[in-house]
């Protein structure tokens, strides 16, 4: 096997676009796309609508697992990367297979964040990131009447809408720790709270979550401030954190995400990060930013691929849609829709 081998980790918009671009521009190269999820390439932002039953599973797919073969991309679905050895140019899969690469693009996306102080309640809270998560919600939701949402990121509002559409009673606890696209302030909380209340959502903010305890199979007792109530399900929505924990031993530069320069390079030749997992330093804004949103991710995926193939293209920074979240600038284009 003397041909070049490019590996892309992650089958989201960024990974997908990166793999396709690599195959288009370097048809002779071997391209392997590794995806932890078994499902094909789908739009996660449609999951709340899927949950609400407004669209079918087929409608959320952008590409099925079979389509990759036609494009000449080797898709390894349901397989997880557990380590990257940048100097040896190897990646290690969960089943102990070691792959050598000539170029690597990390597009592992994010995973739901739960702030450390709430971790003790982890087992009582559900998150929504993947299709599998959505299916779990659907399975459980039919058996409960009331759902408590904690946090307040973009997904939480969409999920709240879906829950209302399903006729569920929704309690919402706005948490200052939520991954909000704007710096949180009281006015904003008040605004959101009012909107939610109008839709019949009981809203808490500036309250302390005291305890949560499983009372029966479908009831968790929650104490928020002075209130005590039971909820059938509890969803935690604190945004996403880049899913880079598996790189802890790798030596790749990590902060919140993978630190890369404006060409998405990690500092190691031939190793790039893109999409939600990349924390990009950009000289123009003299700061780091993390991109979210489907279209941004696609654009970043393409840029990473082109740069891996020898270009030195800086990523575009659309300054008008930059927001500061916990000291990190966030580039979003889709949150406005909500």
């Amino acid at each position, binding site marked *: 096997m003397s041909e070049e081998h490019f590996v892309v980790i992650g089958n989201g918009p960024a990974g997908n676009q990166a793999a396709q671009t690599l195959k288009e521009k370097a048809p002779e190269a071997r391209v392997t796309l590794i995806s932890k999820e*078994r499902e094909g390439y789908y739009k996660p932002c449609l999951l709340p609508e899927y949950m609400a039953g407004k669209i079918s599973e087929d409608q959320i797919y952008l590409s099925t*697992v*079979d389509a*990759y*073969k036609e494009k000449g991309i080797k*898709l*390894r*679905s*349901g*397989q997880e990367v557990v380590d990257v050895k940048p100097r040896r140019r190897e990646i*290690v*899969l*969960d*089943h*102990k*297979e*070691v*792959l*050598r690469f000539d170029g690597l693009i990390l597009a592992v996306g994010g995973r739901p964040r739960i702030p450390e102080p709430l971790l003790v309640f982890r087992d009582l809270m559900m998150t929504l990131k993947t299709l*599998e998560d959505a*299916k*779990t919600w659907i399975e459980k939701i039919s058996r409960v009447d009331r759902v408590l949402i904690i946090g307040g990121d973009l997904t939480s509002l969409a999920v709240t809408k879906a829950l209302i559409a399903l006729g569920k009673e929704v309690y919402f606890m706005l948490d200052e720790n939520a991954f909000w696209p704007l710096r949180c302030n009281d006015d904003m909380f008040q605004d959101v709270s009012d909107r939610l209340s109008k839709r019949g959502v009981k809203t808490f903010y500036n309250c302390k979550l005291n305890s949560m305890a499983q009372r029966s199979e479908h009831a968790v007792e929650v104490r928020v401030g002075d209130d005590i109530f039971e909820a059938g399900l509890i969803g935690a929505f604190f945004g996403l954190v880049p899913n880079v924990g598996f790189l802890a031993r790798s030596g790749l530069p990590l902060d919140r995400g993978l630190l890369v320069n404006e060409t998405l390079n990690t500092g190691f030749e031939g190793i790039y990060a893109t999409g939600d997992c990349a924390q990009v330093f950009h000289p123009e804004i003299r700061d780091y930013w993390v991109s979210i949103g489907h279209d941004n991710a696609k654009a970043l995926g393409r840029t990473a691929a082109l740069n891996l193939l020898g270009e030195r293209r800086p990523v575009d920074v659309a300054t008008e849609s930059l927001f500061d979240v916990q000291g990190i600038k966030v580039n979003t284009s889709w949150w406005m829709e909500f």
Partner: protein
Amino acid sequence: MPKVDITIEVCGMSGDGTIAAGGLLNAAMSEAGFSVLAFDSYPAEIRGFGRCVTRSRIGNEEMLALAEKTHVLISLDDEQSRSRIPFLEKGAAVIFDNKPPSYVGEGHAIPAHVEPDINLFGIPFSDLAAEASGSTRGRNLTALGGFAVIFGLPPEIFRHVIQKKFAPKGEKVLQANLMSFDAGYNFAMTAFEDRLLKILTPPETEEKTEKLLLSGNVAIAQGALDANLKLYFGYPITPATPILEYLAKALPEKGGKVLQMEDEISSIGAVLGCYYAGQRAMTATSGPGFALMTELITHGIMAEIPAVIIDAQRGGPATGLPTKTEQSDLHAAVFGGPGDSPRIVIAPTNVTECYEYTVKSFQLAEKYQTPVIVLTDFFLDNRVENVPMPQASKEALKDGNIYPDPSAKGPYNRFELTESGISPRAVPGMEDFMFTTTGLEHSESGGPNYTPENHMQFSEKRHRKIQGALEDLSIPKEFSKGGSLDVGVISWGSTFGSALEAVQKEQEKGLKVGALKITSLFPFHDEIIRGFMERCGEVLIPELNFQGQLANLIGHLHRKDVVRINQATGKPIPASIILEKIEEVLKA
């Protein structure tokens, strides 16, 4: 319950416990009420570096043949299992050890090779087994635990079959295996919570008939036991050895004896001697051993002594392919040996028939005073089917001997010329019925006689006698709605199941296709066969040999050339190949 028809493979390196896992799987499936047809393949060398594969076809209708595609692959060794990937059905499940003992390079793990639609289930077999039982040896059981959860089988069924298999080996071994199974079960229950396929959950209320998991060889041995076999003589040879092994244990318990001889020649000699003395005896061998026996078989024909010989065919010629299957001893069985030597050759097509035909062979041998050759093959001998407990009828167990009338006066002519060619046979010790027996051509009294008339007369007698056996031999069975057929498939032995499956599929499509099963290979019912052929546009004869030995035997009965499918690969022929050929012939 929806139709179930899935094929499960277990594949590993020798030493992984592959065959044991396959056996437990079959037992559990049988207990769950499914039909099972299974076949293992393993290397010829003892504890070599070789691949072991068990294939089990599971369904809720009778299984006729192995299927070509696999729906579930349980990999105990990814290096070995790689070769099985081309046989995977789309969307198949692959259960593999995702924590093997060492890191491997790209391509040395099964996930590297599967299509993305394949349902991968990674279970750390070795680690779980070690955690649960203290040793990795139970890893095959851990794999079964995972399998049981994923496919929705109740664990009790597996625990029961594990109990049955391992209880004799002591409590410690049993517990270690049970714990390894449970470890896999519990792991998969949590790990795959959202992905369980559950397509094999057995129906709860349906009444189940008690079924037995039997291999062809065991069915033969059991048939012989039920037929009151007195003595068994044999020399070990794959694939016939399990008959020797089984009888060595079971026959003495019934008052019989098993003697391992120095070779196949003495084995057949002893069988003839025993029958000469009036008792039932049997030997089983494979091609190379059968070749050694032919001279004495013809002695039995000449001296009109009964004998039962199982020829478990394997790949040949000579030592050939000891662990591969083939149907290439047909010519040798029918024609092998010096002289004009007609004998009876019958061939069962499935495990139940293995039993029935063995039982019957004793009667035939006795009545027609001739060696009877039962032709099986590696695939039939070693495949496992779950069948209702076979039981021979009283009629089938009757003594087949025709003895001389004790009240008859005058000298006893042992080889008396009769209309049927059957001369009533006395056995040594019967008063007033003394006779001589020889391998030389002889007259009615048994004394040597080389006159031209006598040899002509006695050659004719022996042929008349054997042809007369047709009335006792199973007639070819037709599987069609009758009338004219576009294609007729004629098949024998282990290949018949595949032929019938292919034909049934075509019939379901409404095509005019039929199958004819021939189990009596010599003598054969030429009128019936010709009658079938006359109604067929084309006749197809699939068999596992290169020469087309059945086609050579009966092809002349057709008005034009028969279409042959001659597969000499050492592997059973899948229905799909026959199906393709039918389609091809239909198109032409």
